[in-house]
């Protein structure tokens, strides 16, 4: 007998194995389980809106979707709250979704990504804005032209600004009291600022830091560059845009407006840039401020509210945060950023960008209009986690509980300093930001490091700006 003959017992055993495997496979196949199709709204033809996860709380998102559904019952809507650490992380995740073929229709984009999205992914809103001009007249009348201009790219409008934050200065009033210092005047100078820090340092203990700042594009070294009348990249304006200014803004407001900002030639080695870095370096060396890498925005509310920090640059978004941290309106206040050669402030704004890949562009435009309505924005921005782009929404009632007393500063920054502008964010913003953060750390890490670090920053910025995205 050879092995080629299959014994009956073996045959039965393998038969049983086969039957068992088939039964298991059948059971697994028929088992109820979750698939991608079970995610509400997935692939059901909904208009998909991607927002930064932490920007709106679930109740707000709920109100947003219900309100839109009442107005447009024929347009199913899904809000995709993408959890991300910051805007850069958020954009990375959106791009991953696009690469995966699951691009949203609309994305909530801040200044950091306006030009990148406009150049590569966005659809200009010009034709819809022109078409629905009558409907939008009330919106533009309520929104500062600087914010609108920051959402333009090469003469076209890509977003309607919903919110913004200018870098003003928050002051801890307990610390001021401890130092015996007065609340600064609106036109205080850089020297007044330094003197105040020294007074605070004298009155504080070894673990007290008078000025806390974070090394990032918004609110880091850039406000000092702006105050010193300079910028990281040479700033100019694109031609065009008169179609919008002439339609919606009076002559006084459209004076000097263009088709959006252009940030082109790097100027890291310019005298005024070096001067701003030298000033920050002197503050670090005098132990008057946090070091670039030491500053971490996530623990800032904690250290400020407990009196371990005296002043810090922040926008309207901080009022809500400080209230949550237990600070009362009387415990802190806000003032304009100090004057140096100018008192120009920097800001960042955000709104919805419509993606080229969207097959529901008309529906998406309806959502953009709906989101920019005053009643919608009032529902969206209930707590003071940002500064609404609509001037009429900033009123005493809004800040009655959370403060600060000088809440008018938030919007008046735009009115009082009309040259106030967005942070430099060309399409190559990610690389520009990386270079800025890296060399700011190097420049302020040791004495006499500013010059060499800025020279290397200039080289890297030139390389970054030449790079095709």
């Amino acid at each position, binding site marked *: 007998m050879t092995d080629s003959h299959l014994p009956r017992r*073996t045959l039965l055993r*393998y038969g049983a194995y086969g039957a068992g495997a088939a039964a298991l496979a059948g059971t697994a196949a028929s088992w109820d389980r979750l698939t991608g199709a079970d995610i509400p709204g997935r692939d059901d033809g909904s208009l998909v809106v991607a927002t930064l996860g932490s920007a709106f709380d679930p109740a707000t998102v709920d109100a947003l979707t219900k309100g839109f559904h009442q107005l447009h019952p024929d347009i199913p809507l899904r809000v995709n709250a993408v959890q991300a650490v910051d805007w850069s992380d958020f954009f990375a995740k959106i791009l991953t979704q696009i690469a995966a073929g699951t691009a949203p229709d609309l994305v909530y984009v801040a200044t950091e990504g306006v030009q990148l999205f406009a150049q590569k992914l966005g659809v200009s809103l010009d034709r819809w804005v022109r078409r629905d001009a009558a409907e939008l007249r009330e919106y533009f009348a309520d929104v500062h032209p600087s914010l609108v201009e920051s959402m333009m790219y090469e003469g076209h409008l890509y977003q309607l600004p919903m919110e913004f934050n200018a870098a003003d200065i928050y002051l801890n009033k307990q610390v001021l009291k401890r130092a015996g210092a007065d609340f600064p005047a609106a036109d205080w100078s850089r020297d007044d600022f330094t003197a105040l820090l020294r007074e605070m340092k004298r009155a504080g203990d070894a673990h007290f830091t008078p000025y806390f700042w974070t090394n990032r594009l918004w609110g880091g070294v850039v406000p000092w560059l702006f105050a010193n009348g300079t910028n990281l990249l040479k700033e100019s304006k694109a031609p065009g845009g008169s179609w919008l200014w002439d339609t919606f803004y009076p002559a006084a407001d459209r004076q000097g407006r263009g088709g959006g900002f252009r940030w082109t030639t790097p100027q890291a080695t310019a005298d005024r840039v070096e001067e701003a870095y030298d000033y920050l370096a002197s503050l670090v060396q005098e132990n008057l401020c946090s070091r*670039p*890498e*030491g500053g971490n925005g996530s623990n800032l509310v904690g250290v400020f509210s407990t009196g371990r920090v005296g002043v810090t640059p922040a926008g309207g978004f901080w009022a809500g945060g400080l209230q949550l941290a237990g600070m009362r309106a009387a415990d802190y206040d806000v003032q304009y950023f100090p004057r140096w050669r100018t008192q120009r402030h920097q800001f960042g704004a955000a709104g919805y960008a419509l993606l080229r890949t969207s097959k529901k562009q008309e529906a998406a435009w309806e959502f953009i209009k709906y989101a920019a309505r005053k009643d919608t924005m009032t529902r969206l921005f209930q707590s003071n986690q940002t500064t609404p782009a609509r001037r009429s929404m900033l009123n005493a009632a809004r800040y009655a509980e959370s403060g600060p007393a000088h809440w008018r500063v938030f919007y008046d920054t735009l009115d009082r300093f009309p040259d106030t502008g967005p942070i430099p964010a060309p399409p190559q913003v990610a690389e520009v930001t990386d270079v800025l953060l*890296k060399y700011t*750390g190097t420049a302020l890490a040791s004495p006499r490091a500013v010059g060499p670090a800025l020279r290397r920053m200039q080289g890297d910025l030139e390389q970054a700006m030449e790079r095709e995205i």
Partner: protein
Amino acid sequence: MTNTQVPNTQDPNAQVPAVRSRPATPPPAVAVRPSVRDRGTRLLAALFLAPTVVGIVVFTVVPIIGSLVLSLFHWNVIDPPRFAGGANYRTTFTDSTVLVSFRNTLLFMVLAVALQLLIALSLALALNARMPVWLRSLFRSAFFFPLVLSAASISVVMKYLFNQDFGVVNWLIGLVGVAPVPWLTSEHAAMATVILVYVWQQFGFSFLLFVGGLNNIPKEIHEAAALDGATGLRKHLGITLPLLSPTLLVASVVGIINALQVFEQPYVLTDGGPGDATRTVVMVIYERAFEQLDFGEASAVGVLLFALIMAVTALQFRLSRRFVHYQ
């Protein structure tokens, strides 16, 4: 008659022919077929291996090939890829950030792995001494515990602890009069701090390997050495370490591969700074791909890292022939 030469087995000087000629008559052609049991076993083995093989092919081999192909293109996710030839590699070799990241990663690998193995081995040897079982178990759990935690979470906590202005570490050393140390903000201290955090989290794996390796060394060998008069250090150097060398090889191979791919700790703790002081290769890959939308260059850097890992691992196995002893 054949021309086959039969060696004279009686004569030790007789030469064995260099080439054996074919036998005159070939052996009978008996086809050896595997038994049904053998075939069944092979099938079963293949079935069990299939998921892993499929996993390796889909999640390792295909991405490696994909990266290799992508490294020859310019691709920003949004526009279609454009063929770039060797441009991404040329950029990589002239990009100071990439070169510095390779230097940092190699420095990190040498220091972190050496420290990790030294600490793990010392603690494993210490724990091998006589002590109550419950205490031994407690130490084992304590040393292994950081490994099961997320590296990102640990790094977030460590960032607070090592903060120069508000950190607990500087507060503690301040109690004994030491000035605040710029743990994460000085070019020299930052890498040391990152290594410290990494080693603290990672040494538990090597430690467990060493504990297992030490348990496998037969007691008789140590007893025989003791009878021959070998004392503590001599015993460790002459017996324990040579017999532990296979474990050391595994621990160092795994340690080096992990260290060359370090990302979370420097990313969260220092974001690669100050300057480029703690920027690692995987951080550069992430930045190029997901922040700067340059997937071609990111892939080129990834391919170079892959080649480096392969080279270092091959070198380790090559050297292991001389230093690793199996019982």
